């Protein structure tokens, strides 16, 4: 079972052209900061993303995410290969 840092619909975008979701949906909102590398999406469709920014809106803080290249499996193989 993959732990998702922040649920999001990776099909969705807003006027920035980036994926968006709400900060208060994150497992640990404190970990969601600009530049952070996180796993977003759902347990069925996880992906590695970079947190671009956090935008305070009247209805909550919106997190913008940039999809990073590669799959979770590719990142897993990388970590295994370099032995960390």
């Amino acid at each position, binding site marked *: 079972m993959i732990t998702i840092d922040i649920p999001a*619909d990776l*099909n969705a*975008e807003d006027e920035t052209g980036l994926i968006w979701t*709400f900060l208060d949906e994150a497992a640990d909102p404190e970990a969601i900061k600009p530049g952070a590398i996180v796993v977003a999406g*759902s347990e069925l469709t996880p992906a590695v993303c970079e947190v671009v920014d956090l935008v305070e809106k009247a*209805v909550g803080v919106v997190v913008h995410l940039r*999809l990073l*290249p590669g799959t979770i499996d590719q990142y897993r193989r990388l970590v295994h290969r370099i032995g960390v």
Partner: protein
Amino acid sequence: MSSEMGGVPGKPDAREELRHRVRPEARPVDTSQVVLRGGPDTRSLLRSHARRVNRLFVLDGAEVWAISVSVVLDDVGVGSSRSILRTRLRSYDHVYLSTVGRLRKRGFDLLPTFARPHFSVLLPGVDHAEELFDALGELHSNPYAGEQETGGQR
């Protein structure tokens, strides 16, 4: 209409107007136009995504629930199926492949929102996510899954 709404009774609606994000272009009229969405989804996930949209947006001042899709608008370029699958949807091993006609036949209208080829499939209420799930059809393999991005905004 569902009773599950994002606004707070008695308070001015602070949500954003989705109409301001609608592209000034004709809606897709060709019922054969292909609709792509990365998956797999579940009925529960679609409800969550629709609620998220409802929390942030209204449409013409009224409640709105919507799910994001990409519509194949061109043979080449950002609106082509190849570009959509290898950029926007590259993190998805599988994608739902439907058509504008199939979704409309089930009662779902599509609104051209944000940047091409993004569209919002409008749901009459969050409970209609289940019907949309059925209308999305079968999952197909994404031949470009995991490829390095070569263009697009993401």
